[in-house]
């Protein structure tokens, strides 16, 4: 019976670096989201731009926190 071993989708050695990278990008985007909120006035704000930055930031933060959990040994 031919059987091939199953490995993780991403090499395990990359988890710590990936987590740092993704979390930093996510935090930068979150910061830009807050800056946008703080510096723009009510009429000039566009909901679509807010949501885009928010979604992209949460995407990176989500993957980054998952990689952080995996890098520390909590294999979820």
């Amino acid at each position, binding site marked *: 019976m031919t059987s091939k*071993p199953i490995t993780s989708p991403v090499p395990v050695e990359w988890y710590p670096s990936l987590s740092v990278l993704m979390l930093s990008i996510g935090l930068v985007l979150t910061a830009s989201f807050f800056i946008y909120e703080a510096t723009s006035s*009510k009429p000039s*704000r566009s909901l679509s731009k*807010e*949501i885009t930055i*928010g979604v992209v*930031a949460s995407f990176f933060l*989500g993957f980054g926190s*998952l990689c952080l959990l995996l890098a520390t040994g909590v294999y979820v």
Partner: protein
Amino acid sequence: MEEGPLRRALILVLVVFSLLSAMGSSSSSSPSPQDVRVLSAERRIDLTSFIVRVFLTLKVENTGASDVSEILIAFSPNEVQHLSIVKASAVAGKRKKKAYLSLDVNPVELAKGPNGAQLFSIALLSPLKSSETTVVEVLYVLTHSQEPFPAEISQSESQYVYYRDSALLLSPYHIGEQRTFIKTPNTKVESYTSVNPSSRVGTEIKYGPYHDRAPYSYSPIVVHFENNHPFAVVEELMREVEISHWGNVQITEHYKLVHAGARHKGVFSRVEYQARPSISGPSSFKHLLARLPPRVHSVYYRDEIGNISSSHLRSDSLKSELELEPRYPLFGGWKATFVIGYGLPLQDFLFESSDGQHYLNLTFGCPLLETVVDRLTIKVVLPEGSKDPSVSVPFPVKQHYETTYSYLDVVGRKTLVLIKENVAPEHNVPFEVYYKFNSFFMLAEPLMLQAWRKICVFGEVFAFNFTKSQEQKKRDKTARNSHCSSDASFDFPELQSNRLGCLAEEANEKEIKKLHLDGVRDSSWRRGERS
């Protein structure tokens, strides 16, 4: 006469009944014991460890007319209670090119020998033709068969045990010639039952040869000898295997270890134990060796109190050896409870079979060397979202399913629980667990984390947009206080400029007032200065 037909009917019924019973007995699958004859039997009993291993070589001849497809071996009721595993193999080839092919051994449920002897049937690879011979090798393992006598010893005494067996091999067949060799761990044998001809040379006791014994002949013997081998018995072992498709198999093992030899009586003197280690506590043990797979990481060894630091891990490319030292040496009757955990890389154990199923290839049994487990429970926790789990184990186990809740779980993980009693090191063979898993479900975890973050984002968006900020509130307040605010100005832009002008005027007024107040203050200060 009326009796005539009745009598004829009765005779007919009797004849039919006897024919049926004759047919029934002749069509039974197991051959009658008289068909097979054991030409020679050699039994080697290994008593060097506390686990008794018996190697049996049978040369069997088919003396009947029909083909024989199975060979029966018998065990006494006492042996059956302590029997851990029976393995049989057929020898193919001669001398240097011997190949051992394993045969299936199954207990025979229906038939039993005299005095409650239990029969096991070995299925031959090809049926044995009439007047042909074949050689079958059987290995069986008995646990808890060495009874410590005296039952209680002090710290410096050696441990002596009884081993009870029979000089004659218990068999449902007629045995032509048989020999039994018993190997003891050292030459200190207190006594052994002598059944002519029997002799003892060094560490080996020889019983035999005995010629032409009837089936089920039994001659009990007792050997009383010294055995200081560590009697490490794990009363209960719970192994939990958690599979994560992100790259790790985490195994946690909970042990309840006991020294099953002669019980320790009296005082334990640590001074005596450490001052003269060679003669103090000869039957005690303080090291345990566990054999783990290679590439193991994050090994921990702890108990209820906390971490136990007296351990060593040595690994090479083929295996890892974990040497454990419990907090105290174990004397007879003493117990130790601890937990071992380690992680293994996923690609060594999880494979994808050709029909798309995932299967986990694990070693059954206890990683501790030379230990007996009274009750072993293995829990395999499959990843969330797995379907259709099934298991293939080479020996009978009890199994059922459970649900375990672990990290980031919504519906719970399906868990397969296998329970086996009386496990010997011969049970350390690989077994497989099959299940179906859609890799897409792995994304569920990061998506859950992202969903939490998106909720935060949307909360912030909501907070910023749909509630009034501080600035807005202040502007509203000033607008309420001034007299020239009117909602109509928002609908009519031309009125906007009016409102702005009005506000500007108001602001100007406020400025003038402020300047005036400042001027007053100023002048009063000047007045103050002058005066």
